[in-house]
């Protein structure tokens, strides 16, 4: 069964959603400013490390080792967490995870839980499931709180409210938090959130988090954050529930020496994020006295089965690929219609939900390769994109019915494939092109093609076919050589 929860609504095609987003000039200004700032910060701190490439390679290799032996490491993690006094639950999909979590909260008769920002809980739409069970989940990360109060979806995996500017946030806080007077200074806005959440931190009995790392050998879970809302949730409540995708595991404590360098520098562009917490099961007299770890599959084992797509599970959710992507920078995150936007979303979402449910996402890229270059765990995103495009085409051919088979693009590509695989046909087509192109050529360029091909020339010119092809030239040269040697 494919999990559908990753996709926010049955996705409008990316092309359509992107067009709408591009018309929003405020959004483009906000996005442009934000991504430029964070790109510069990242470049500066990455530049400080002489061994950055060695760290990336080690990160990739550790992830590869983990994924190739995922069953082994998951069992080891389960054992370690239990030994340290924690409980381990397994969830095949979103609804199973939500059921497990809701039950734990119910056992403690809690009507309210506090949450640390977690993409995984967004993916399974936990807040909605809790609400249906009569439990209020309060997001405590500032950006998540903004999104929750506004009733919106996140547009960036690290800074979900990146699409909103300070005056929009000021208005929102005045309307929803009952603050009478408030400036739009970010410091004052942060102080308003502090005042609003303080009492909740001190009194709410159950917290829910994701997990950045889970160490198989020790059962230690790690959370990186900035504001201290994470530490509050991990330390003060009596009960802690952490949900993690099965791929978040690392074999050994030592492996953190790599990831604690890769993640903050790639993510927020800091040498180290303000706070990182590690805990191992339950510690007497310190922190929650009941700990539950929920291991979530929700489509990941299917990603694992694809040998090219597998590397997608290397992802540590840093968001460097979003910030560098020329497409994301202009459209923002909402156009992707997925919990995971940007280049990583374009490859992760179709694999989690099946290409047939997100067939436009693998095309949400110009294949420029910048995402691969910045990826701290060396996910070859362009390679996976092309691989998925092939799957989308195959899916249309196999399951698109007659409409799929008679699709003009499909017919054209099939004709092209026959032409390219036959020398005589290929050269005949070249000659036809040379002869037939003249009505469209102006000063050596074709600026407008007819019919469906017009899409290609809408944004760029095409160089006209030369009167002498490489093959012609080669043959001529060979003849001349033969003549000369005679």
């Amino acid at each position, binding site marked *: 069964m494919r999990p559908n929860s990753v996709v926010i609504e049955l996705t409008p095609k990316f092309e359509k959603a992107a067009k709408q987003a591009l018309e929003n000039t405020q959004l483009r200004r906000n996005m442009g400013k934000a991504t430029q700032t964070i790109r510069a910060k990242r470049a500066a701190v990455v530049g400080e490390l002489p061994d950055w490439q060695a760290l990336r390679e080690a990160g990739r290799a550790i992830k590869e080792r983990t994924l190739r032996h995922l069953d082994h490491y998951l069992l080891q993690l389960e054992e370690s967490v239990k030994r340290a006094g924690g409980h381990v639950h397994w969830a095949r999909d979103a609804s199973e995870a939500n059921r497990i979590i809701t039950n734990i909260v119910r056992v403690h008769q809690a009507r309210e839980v506090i949450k640390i920002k977690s993409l995984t809980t967004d993916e399974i739409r936990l807040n909605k499931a809790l609400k249906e069970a009569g439990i209020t989940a309060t997001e405590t990360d500032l950006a998540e709180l903004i999104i929750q109060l506004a009733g919106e979806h996140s547009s960036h995996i690290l800074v979900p409210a990146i699409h909103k500017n300070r005056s929009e946030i000021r208005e929102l806080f005045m309307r929803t938090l009952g603050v009478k007077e408030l400036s739009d200074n970010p410091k004052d806005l942060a102080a308003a959130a502090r005042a609003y959440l303080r009492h909740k931190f001190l009194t709410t009995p159950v917290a829910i988090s994701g997990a950045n790392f889970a160490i198989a050998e020790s059962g230690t879970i790690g959370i990186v954050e900035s504001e201290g809302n994470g530490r509050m949730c991990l330390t003060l409540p009596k009960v802690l529930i952490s949900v993690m995708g099965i791929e978040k595991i690392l074999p050994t404590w030592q492996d953190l020496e790599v990831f604690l360098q890769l993640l903050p520098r790639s993510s927020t562009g800091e040498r180290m994020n303000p706070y990182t917490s590690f805990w191992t099961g339950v510690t007497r007299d*310190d922190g929650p006295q009941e700990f539950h770890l929920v291991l979530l599959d929700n489509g990941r084992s299917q990603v694992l089965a694809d040998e090219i797509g597998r590397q997608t599970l290397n992802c540590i959710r840093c968001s460097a690929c979003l910030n560098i992507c020329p497409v994301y920078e202009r459209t923002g995150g909402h156009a992707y219609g997925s919990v995971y936007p940007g280049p990583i979303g374009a490859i992760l979402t179709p694999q989690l939900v099946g290409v047939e449910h997100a067939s436009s996402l693998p095309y949400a890229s110009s294949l420029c390769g910048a995402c691969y270059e910045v990826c701290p765990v060396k996910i070859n995103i362009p390679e996976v994109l092309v691989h998925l495009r092939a799957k989308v085409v195959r899916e249309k051919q196999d399951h698109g019915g007659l409409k799929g088979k008679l699709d003009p693009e499909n017919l054209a590509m099939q004709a092209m494939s026959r032409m390219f695989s036959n020398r005589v046909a290929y050269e005949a087509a070249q000659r036809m092109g040379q002869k037939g192109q003249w009505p469209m050529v102006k000063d050596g360029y074709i600026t407008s093609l007819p019919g469906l091909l017009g899409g290609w020339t809408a944004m760029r010119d095409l160089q006209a076919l030369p009167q002498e092809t490489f093959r012609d030239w080669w043959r001529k040269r060979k003849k001349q050589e033969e003549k000369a040697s005679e």
Partner: protein
Amino acid sequence: MSEAREAILARIRSALHDVPPSEQPQDSPVKRDYLTQGSTERAQLIERFTDRLVDYKAKVRHVSAEELAAAIAQSCAEHGVKRLVVPSDLPQSWWPSDVEILVDRDFSLSYDELDRSDGVLTACAIGVAQTGTIILDSGEAQGRRAISLVPDYHLCVVRADQIVDLVPEAVSNLRSAVLDHRRPITFISGPSATSDIELNRVEGVHGPRTLEVLIVVS
């Protein structure tokens, strides 16, 4: 065992059809040719640590062992600290006079008491020069996690010999605390901060809004 557990493990095993059954985890190579040991001189190390702390908006002062108690008292006075939380094993010689000391004896201080205090004084386990990070490992004179979190002002004492150069050195030093003692670990790099609004960094959200570090140099 649960049905879900067996199902997930079966899915994973069938997904890994390309991995030979004889392959062991260590057969999948991991080259660790990144830096694991710094080569910086101690004096420079302290300087870099200080520099990076200041860069992330922590306040830093260098003091000698003899000056420490006076420096603590001075810092508390400057920040208007009247009620100071301390872990029960913090040296009494560090306690500032003229300040009400709230000792977290047997972890007895309530969250409300912590919230109503003006600050907390702790030692630390490790300082990392490369990143300006202070690491608490729930060891000596550090107390439980809540006491260094709820108060709005954290005054932290770092001995110069606790400073290492690189992150891998720190991770390696923490190995026993995690694997043998299962102690909670907290990395602190500057005061709590957010960049959620237009990516402008604002210091001070939920964690202590002021972090002050006293480095004890000989």
